């Protein structure tokens, strides 16, 4: 009833009072006023920096001059002729291939094993989840000792079963894999949560039908569960890829990109160029490429993200 009264046809309001007009205008402005704080902040710390970093990547400061000069793609050229950057890109790819499929597969396995809500499973889930709760820096400082050659936790127990350890963080052939190990350990439990949620949404009758049709556990997993979990997998994949590109705390604490650039990841390279070498142009160019990668990925997965945002309830 009330809505009819307020939404009177325009003709009836032949001469709207000034007061009514003001109220109407204010009501029309309200949504934008509510969004303004967030939009201003998003503009200032997400969109403006992108514009700025693109601009920076096309300019460089010539030694001895205060103003920067347009250098075209010069920064990109010097970026791609920098062996350390190319190595960082390759390392990041290896790091992605090493961490993403393994941690996702483990996550699915954990979720399948612990999907029934029993008391024991609740505790086991918490234990597996725990690594993802602590700061990556704290995890790294623990692994500092665990990976210590000879006396660390790893080598100590390997020696007990008659195996010789390695120089986990000091050997250029092994160091990146050690970091991959930390990342899988840290993230698998986190991704497990998404699969646990995904498993709860599976239609029980489909699984039952497959069982009646004589499908064994592996066939059910391969042909029923995994395909039905595809949306979850897509969502987790996006998160995992973002993590691959944005988390380098353990590199900073444990290896500083070494030995001989073997653990240098792209974001660490950016951090190093900006923070330690003061090579702003190269840092900007590498940032632009990372942003472009994330943008490409977000366009590809906009649907997934939207679903994730909608599922947020």
């Amino acid at each position: 009833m009330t809505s009819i009264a307020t939404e009177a046809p325009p003709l009836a309001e032949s001469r709207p009072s000034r007061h009514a007009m003001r109220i109407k205008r204010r009501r029309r402005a309200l949504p934008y006023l509510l969004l303004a704080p967030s939009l201003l902040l998003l503009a200032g710390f997400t969109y403006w920096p992108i514009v700025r970093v693109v601009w920076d990547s096309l300019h460089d400061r010539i030694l001895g001059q205060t103003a920067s000069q347009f250098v075209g793609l010069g920064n990109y050229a010097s970026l791609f002729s920098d062996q350390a950057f190319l190595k960082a890109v390759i390392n990041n790819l290896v790091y992605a291939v090493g961490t993403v499929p393994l941690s996702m597969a483990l996550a699915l396995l954990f979720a399948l094993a612990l999907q029934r809500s029993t008391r024991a499973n609740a505790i086991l889930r918490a234990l597996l989840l725990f690594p993802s709760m602590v700061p990556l820096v704290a995890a790294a400082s623990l692994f500092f000792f665990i990976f210590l050659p000879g006396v660390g936790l790893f080598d100590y127990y390997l020696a007990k079963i008659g195996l010789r350890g390695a120089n986990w963080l000091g050997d250029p052939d092994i160091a990146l894999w050690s970091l991959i190990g930390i990342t899988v350990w840290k993230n698998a439990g986190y991704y497990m949560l998404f699969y646990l949620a995904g498993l709860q949404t599976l239609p029980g009758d489909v699984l039952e039908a497959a069982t009646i049709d004589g499908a064994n556990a592996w066939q059910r997993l391969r042909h029923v569960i995994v395909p039905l979990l595809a949306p979850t997998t897509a969502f987790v994949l996006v998160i995992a890829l973002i993590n691959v590109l944005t988390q380098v705390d353990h590199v900073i604490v444990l290896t500083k990109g070494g030995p001989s650039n073997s653990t240098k990841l792209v974001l660490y390279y950016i951090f190093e160029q900006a923070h330690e070498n003061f090579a702003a142009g190269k840092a900007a160019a590498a940032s632009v490429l990372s942003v472009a990668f994330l943008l490409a990925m977000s366009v590809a997965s906009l649907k997934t993200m939207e679903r994730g945002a909608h599922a947020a309830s």
Partner: protein
Amino acid sequence: MRRASLIITGLMLILAFFWSTPFLWTLVASFRPDSAIGMASLVPNYKPTWANFAEALDAGDFAIYYLNTAIVAFGILAVQIVTISLAGYAFARLTFPGRELIFYVFLLQLMLVPPILIVPNLRTIVDLGLYGSLLGVMAPYFASAFGTFLMRQTFRQIPRDFEEASVIDGAHWWQTLWHVLLPMAKPGLIAFSLVSLMAHWNEFLWPLMVLNEPRTQTLTIGLATFALGSEGGKEWGVLAAGTLLVMFPLLALFAVFQRQFVNSFMFSGLKG
């Protein structure tokens, strides 16, 4: 069937044990009195001591680190709750031209996560005169796309009847938001708070770039400095104790809010 599930539980028990060894070691090592000898052992074959904790507290300015970290994490959260409630309300309850477009402007921020923009954001922070300050660490996180979506969803699930009653009583939109919607949105707010607090309690790279003096450092920076400093000294018990000190508030929070934690994490995905 029953036997199979017992076997699975048994296997997972073994796996969870291996998964937990780093924490187990930290716990055992932090109470170990004599450094160096048998440091790697997981067996607590000693008389426990608080000495490592005392030394860790002594060596680092943990009190200041805790305070700074708390200021950063709770400061960000306080501002975020205001921004996400307002924006979430607008998306959930109001229709206006450009809503779709603005929604996508928010959506994209889920992907363009701040760590990737550290270089230009640091310049902005310098321009704003916030370099070296805790406010500089906090500023880029004051708006949260994830939080906005969460509030939007939470508000949407509240039946409109409640608001209509208060509107008929002549309440303004902010009164409705404050007295009707926000109290009912508590689960969403708690979930968001947990994720946001955890994300910023744990953050390292950005504060490392913005903060330049010992008295403004956060816990993660303090711990990293500490870990790197003890490299030569081999004071592993002290390092273990220090790590435990950093993790302790999270442990406590996890113990209290375990259920909400798991739930909020499940739908967080992208961190606050």
